């Protein structure tokens, strides 16, 4: 076994997202394990890589709970390896990958495939398995076998189980295994043929609309089902003001519900569609400014528990086409932090620990995984950020196999300078 160099991080603002606090301390990492967190740790002899973090932010490695790695089946768009590299470039050390691959992650074998691949890649990759076989919404997957094999949650992401009875049984059955159901809420008849948010801009541009009702009907249904079944549900990529309101009320009632939002739904509103840029074609659609404001308020008030990228890689040929023909999705691993930081901290005055909680302990708690904190005796997963650096995002910047980023052309602040993942220095950009 090759011994890793020991690492000493000196003088950084170390964030404790759980406590929403920060303090200037040093961190010493020995053989990949956090050995010491203290003030003024000396360099213990040679062979130690010293990172001068004065003026930099030291955070637990980020957790992105909604990522499409396209592996197996669409390896020309992304793989577990390439996705993990893009993740650590974005300061992410844990990703949960969605099951809409080919074949889908709906079998013990498929879960094991991801688990095995994840050993040798730059960050932790945790599979989310399908709720229904083939994600077809007709019969329940072997949720017991899948959870034993290592699944951290269940989802039919990209699809939505239309059959309420089946959804109810999925919820009831999931309780046995204690794993969250990650729900993509979309009434498929309501959203049929839709391309963008139904509103002023869909009308002006002649693009078929997707009503807020498409999301809200399913959120309402699933809150009712969760209340009755007492399952743990998580609404992913929330896009509507109505969703924020309903989930806020459900939480007050004591229903076991959490939710996340993407940086692109926080950053943009549907006025960006006037250029017909297909990188803004996403699902759920980028909605109106009122919805966006409600999402920001939801983050501030704590109704929204996490920010997740919904990293959705697509080939140029799938995006370089007419708006109608283009696929839905934007990549997001590499801009998860900078986009969220620029919007929530710089424009909306949230504190850095509050933001970091949304991409560390927030999602870790939802998935019930050991991640999102810096702890003595644990494998080092640490991200070091220069929060003053600012740059205009270019297509060439991305290392993901796909380049379909909605953030191309935007000025974003916050640069990841080091990512220590699985105890090793996995990314350096100083």
């Amino acid at each position: 076994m090759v011994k890793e160099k020991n690492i000493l991080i000196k003088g950084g603002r170390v964030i404790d997202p759980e406590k929403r606090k920060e303090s200037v301390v040093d961190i010493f990492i020995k053989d990949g394990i956090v050995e010491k967190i203290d003030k003024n740790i000396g360099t213990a002899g040679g062979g130690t890589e010293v990172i001068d973090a004065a003026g930099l932010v030291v955070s637990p490695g980020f957790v992105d709970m909604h990522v499409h790695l396209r592996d197996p089946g669409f390896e020309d768009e992304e793989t577990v390896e390439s996705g993990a590299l893009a993740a650590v470039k974005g300061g992410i050390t844990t990703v949960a990958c969605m099951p809409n691959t080919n074949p889908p992650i709906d079998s013990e074998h498929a879960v094991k495939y991801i688990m095995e691949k994840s050993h040798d890649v730059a960050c932790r990759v945790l599979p989310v398995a399908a709720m229904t076989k083939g994600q077809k919404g007709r019969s329940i997957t072997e949720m017991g076998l899948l959870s034993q094999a290592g699944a951290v949650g269940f989802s039919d992401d990209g699809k939505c189980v239309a059959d309420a009875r089946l959804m109810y049984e999925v919820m009831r059955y999931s309780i046995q295994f204690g794993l969250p159901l990650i729900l993509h809420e979309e009434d498929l008849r309501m959203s049929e043929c839709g391309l963008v948010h139904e509103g002023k801009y869909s009308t002006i541009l002649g693009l078929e609309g997707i009503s807020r009702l498409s999301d809200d009907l399913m959120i309402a249904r699933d809150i009712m089902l969760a209340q009755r079944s007492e399952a743990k549900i998580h609404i992913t990529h929330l896009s509507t003001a109505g969703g924020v309101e309903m989930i806020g009320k459900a939480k007050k009632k004591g229903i076991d519900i959490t939710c996340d939002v993407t940086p692109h739904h926080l950053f943009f509103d549907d006025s960006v569609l006037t250029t017909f840029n297909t990188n803004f074609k996403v699902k759920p659609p980028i909605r109106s400014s009122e919805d966006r404001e409600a999402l920001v308020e939801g983050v501030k008030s704590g109704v929204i528990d996490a920010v997740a990228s919904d990293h959705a890689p697509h080939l140029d040929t799938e995006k370089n086409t007419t708006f109608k023909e283009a696929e839905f999705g934007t990549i997001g691993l590499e801009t998860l932090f900078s986009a969220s930081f620029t919007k929530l901290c710089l424009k909306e005055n949230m504190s850095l620990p509050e933001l970091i909680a949304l991409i560390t302990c927030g999602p870790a708690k939802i998935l019930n995984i050991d991640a999102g904190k810096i702890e003595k005796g644990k494998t080092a997963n640490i991200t070091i950020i220069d929060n003053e650096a600012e740059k205009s995002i270019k297509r060439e910047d991305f290392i993901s196999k796909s380049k379909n980023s909605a953030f191309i052309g935007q000025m974003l602040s916050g640069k990841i300078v080091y990512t220590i993942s699985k105890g090793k220095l996995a990314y350096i950009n100083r």
Partner: protein
Amino acid sequence: MLSKKSLLDIESLDLEDIKLILSNTDSFLEISKREVKKVPTLRGKTVFNLFFEVSTRTKTSFEIAAKRLSADIINFSAAASSIRKGESVVDTLKTILSMKVDIIIIRHSDSGTARMIDGFVNVPVINAGDGKHQHPTQALLDLYTIKKRFGDFKGLKVAIVGDFIDSRVARSDISLFEKMGMDITIVSPTMFLPEDFSELKVRYQIDDVIEDCDILYMLRMQFERQDRKFYPSIMEYNRFLGLDMERLKRMKQGSIVMHPGPVNRGIEISDEVMDVGGKLAERVVIEEQVTYGVAVRMAILYLILG
């Protein structure tokens, strides 16, 4: 010269552009009335008619316009089924560009395609209809037709009747008519209206506007563009939104009936109205629209290429 290189939508035209197009149309209309209907204005220029969607009048209208200006025109038609993927649109374009054309006239069934193509090429692009988005030359010929009848635009009451949500003509007309200070009412049943139409003046039945409007603009019922069919029946449409003789007679003195064509006889306009003779026939200006269409397109080609 127009303020922009390409004509993609009405929004990007300023008032000067619009005035210029209207005044130039007058002279090109005169050419169309001559014995020899041809001027050498665009000799040596190559116009590419790129139609990814079936069209007879718009394509023919551009073709005649280009020929009367002595340009060479090449027609490229592709049935929607044979070129489905947009990537093929891009490939087709590359081929065309290597043949050194001077302008591309594009029609496509997907909204935003004209703009997409404009981003790929450095020659001017004219949008001849993109999905449900825009059809600017139709709106300009409609405006010219109105000018010929009314002289001025301010305060004219226009009722646009029919399938609003699926209509690129309605979008371009509304945008242009608003710029000219006209007073617009949409007459459309709920299934052809967006979820939130609070920014539009809306009526549900043709009888609400028939006696009061100066211009009754009948939209084509576009079954081919409707993703799902929600309207109950043609009989219901006739009753609440169709133009028949009885309604034509009730229209006020000097008012006109327009339609972008082709008319669905017996749906939005009855046979009787289409074939009406005598004094009432003066109200129906659908054929004038087609005639002026050629002159308007000559003016646009001239202003972009000349």
